[in-house]
């Protein structure tokens, strides 16, 4: 028997919960299913630290937020989407404040904002340095208020169900029983987050395996701009744990092995003394955008300026001058993480950091309403690519994006579902049966395989880091691509040890790896095809931005022969491409 709802949301993180609440608030008669492979509060929104951007102060304007975002994106963001985004951001943030998010405050009781990388004016709302955590819990707790929302926790959606060229639900594995259930609805919203786990060294949690992107890709939907992978410049070596950009927003500096602020050598401006009242200067030095800072690290490494550690080369993030009191008030989590996982107290010692895979700008191709090319399928959050992030996302835009486009996708999906209430239930149910059989045949009952999941995953990680890292070349990307094809073949020979139907995490790991291999190849092939350097995609063999040929979104489609790359134009409404300048 299928489960029937009006809308199915896959993923219970920030975007999914925002979408669910949007529907419950505006159309209380619609029933909403939130299908999530983890309990919603485990979703990786929880790990975001620094803050969420929205214009709220008198010294700021929507236009400035727009410009920062477009420049940050290296002109690859769609300007109509960004205009809508910056305009809607403040009301979404206020709404979240009304729902109880414990924003840090000014003495007068108004919300406080902090500077962030690539932002000309301070506009990043924050809840100390656990902003994502507080946002997610506020959304989750608020969502509990609405009875039309039904949660299917620890249900792993594995397939989008399409009939009559319309998305009409998902097949999901109930981890507790091992049964594949069909959850049917007039519209489906993918809110499954990013895919950082295709890389070895990432801030992303174990769950961020890009399942939603993978499902959409298999259903024939294009993945947009997959070559754009964001490296956050400050992760802890070894673990890859994120040290928030807010540490630099509050005035922290990056220094090389000689204590020198090396960013000044990489066209990021001239440093002011840390005692200068104007430090930190916005859009300059440590407050440059993430792509540029991570690239500067690599070049500094090649120059011999980094410090070698067991966890690879590092530089130092120095926040000592901020003082214990400010650190405890505004960056307590940074201190906790550095103490626990780097064994140092940043009040007294600089923090060792290196770039770490953090975010994927690309994702399921959607329009400004979150709609994909497949009728009935919507997407929002990191899993989607609207695109407001283009070739490089600015820190603190993604938490806001969850709210803005989660809400938008919720409304759009609700409307679509209301207008398309009839489903091909019998056929969909059969698809569910097929999916159950596929999982049984390819995994649970599979005999005789020899390849360990962990081995394939490790080799995928190595080749992604090797070929699709911060600096790329045709040769390296090609090698990666070939390696991924080989891994796909070897995946057919997977060794399965666990035959249980109850909470079989070997099965979920295998399903996740299955999705990741698809996505990794889409990343490599998209990167291979983009023969220019833009934002986070840096080709040493094509070091210049090439607007004549590549002011375009790439679209990766899954075909029998592999990946087909297509393009579509970037929407430019009011600011044609210029030189991308920081610090001067």
């Amino acid at each position, binding site marked *: 028997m299928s489960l029937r709802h009006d809308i199915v949301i896959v993923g219970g993180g920030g975007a999914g919960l925002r979408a669910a609440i949007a529907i419950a608030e505006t159309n209380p008669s619609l029933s909403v299913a939130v299908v999530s492979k*983890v*309990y919603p*509060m*485990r*979703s*990786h929104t*929880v*790990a975001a630290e620094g803050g969420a951007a929205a214009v709220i102060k008198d010294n700021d304007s929507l236009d400035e937020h727009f410009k920062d975002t477009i420049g940050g994106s290296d002109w690859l963001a769609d300007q109509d989407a960004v205009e809508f985004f910056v305009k809607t951001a403040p*009301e979404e943030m*206020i*709404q979240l*404040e*009304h*729902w*109880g998010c*414990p924003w*840090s*405050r*000014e*003495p*007068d*009781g*108004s*919300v406080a904002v902090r500077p962030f990388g690539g932002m000309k004016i301070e506009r990043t709302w924050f809840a100390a340095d*656990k902003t994502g*955590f*507080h946002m997610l*819990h506020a959304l989750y*707790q*608020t969502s*509990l*208020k609405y009875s039309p929302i039904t949660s299917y*926790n620890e249900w792993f959606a594995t397939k989008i169900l399409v009939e009559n060229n319309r998305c009409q639900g998902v097949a999901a594995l109930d981890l*507790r029983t091992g049964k594949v259930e069909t959850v049917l609805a007039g519209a489906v919203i993918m809110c499954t987050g990013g895919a950082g786990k295709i890389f070895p060294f990432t801030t992303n*949690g*174990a*769950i961020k395996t890009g399942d939603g992107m993978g499902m959409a890709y298999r259903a024939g939907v294009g993945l947009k701009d997959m070559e754009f992978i964001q490296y956050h410049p400050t992760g802890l070596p*070894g*673990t890859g*744990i*994120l040290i928030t950009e807010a540490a630099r927003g509050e005035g922290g500096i990056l220094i090389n092995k000689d204590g020198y602020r090396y960013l000044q050598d990489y066209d990021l401006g001239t440093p002011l003394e840390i005692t200068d009242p104007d430090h930190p200067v916005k859009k300059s030095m440590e407050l440059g955008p993430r792509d540029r800072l991570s690239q500067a690290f690599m070049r500094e490494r090649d120059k011999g300026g980094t410090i070698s550690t*067991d966890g690879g080369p590092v530089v130092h993030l120095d926040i000592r001058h901020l003082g214990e009191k400010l650190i405890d008030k505004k960056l307590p*989590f940074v201190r*906790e*993480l550095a103490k*626990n*996982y780097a064994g140092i107290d940043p009040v007294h010692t600089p923090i060792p950091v290196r770039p770490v895979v953090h975010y994927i700008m690309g994702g399921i191709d959607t329009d400004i309403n979150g709609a994909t090319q497949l009728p009935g399928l919507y997407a929002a959050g990191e899993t989607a690519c609207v695109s407001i992030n283009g070739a490089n996302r600015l820190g603190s835009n993604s938490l806001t994006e969850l709210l803005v486009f989660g809400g938008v996708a919720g409304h759009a999906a609700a409307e679509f579902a209301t207008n398309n209430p009839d489903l091909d239930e019998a056929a969909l149910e059969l698809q569910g049966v097929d999916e159950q059989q596929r999982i049984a045949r390819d995994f649970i009952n599979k005999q005789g395989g020899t390849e*360990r*999941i*962990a081995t394939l995953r490790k080799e995928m990680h190595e080749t992604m880091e090797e070929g699709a890292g911060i600096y790329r070349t045709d040769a390296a990307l090609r090698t990666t691509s070939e390696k991924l094809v080989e891994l796909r073949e070897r995946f057919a020979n997977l060794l*399965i*040890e*666990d035959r*249980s*139907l*109850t*909470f*079989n*995490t*070997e099965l979920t790991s295998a399903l996740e790896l299955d999705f990741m291999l698809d996505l990794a190849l889409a990343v490599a092939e998209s990167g291979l095809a983009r023969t220019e350097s833009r934002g986070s995609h840096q080709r040493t063999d094509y070091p210049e931005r090439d607007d004549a040929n590549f002011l375009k979104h790439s679209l990766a489609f899954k075909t029998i022969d592999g990946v087909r790359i297509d393009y579509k134009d970037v929407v430019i409404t009011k600011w044609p491409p210029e030189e991308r300048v920081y610090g001067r």
Partner: protein
Amino acid sequence: MAKTIELEIFRYRPEEESEPTLQSYEVPFNEEWVVLDAINYIKDEIDGTISHRWSCRMGVCGSCGMMINRVPRLTCAAFLKEYYPRKIRVEPLDGFPVERDLVTDMDMFVSKLTDVSPWIIRNEGEEKPVEEGTYLQSPGELAEYKQYSMCINCMLCYAACPVFALDTNFLGPAAIALGQRYNMDSRDQGRDQRQEVIASHDGVWHCTFVGECSAVCPKDVDPAGAIQRAKLSSTADYFKDLLMPWGKRK
């Protein structure tokens, strides 16, 4: 020879066994590793059939709480070196039914969270429209409830609570702390509504103040404190109603 450490893992596979067992694994001892790393090593390299929950491995998602040598801890924050060379026994969190291996059934916990109405409640007609902007909340008002808003729902406090272990009807530390978090939020007007649950027998009055919930809390939420404060204010309510029945709250 490289150093190793022994992990004794609680195993329960409902399709295969009616009673749990303990299974031993020898893993490399790495100074940098947390217990979660060792469990992942076992799953990846030795025995793919172990099931456990984890995600962020930075102490904020709340997934990986387990009993380590009988003490509830986040396995991503418990280093092997704290135990070496002793062996480490890993079990699912006490007090909860075991679905499989190290995975507990946490639905009961989620329904307790829901019971305290953990959202901002405003009096009818006093909701602030978005167009009117944010509520003002001073840093001092924020500080009143901030600590209780830090709960990551890791459930260690329940696993440490003997009252909950003996009677799972107890609303429990995290849920009560969450109720208090909203009660003390200057934007909220829902305390009276929550009192029915919080000030009930299965609520605060079930707590005997063992205090271990606060001792094991990885985020210093201090649920024990939240509960005692709720007891105090409930008692104050009682006497107020008794002495001033004309001012009786709704």
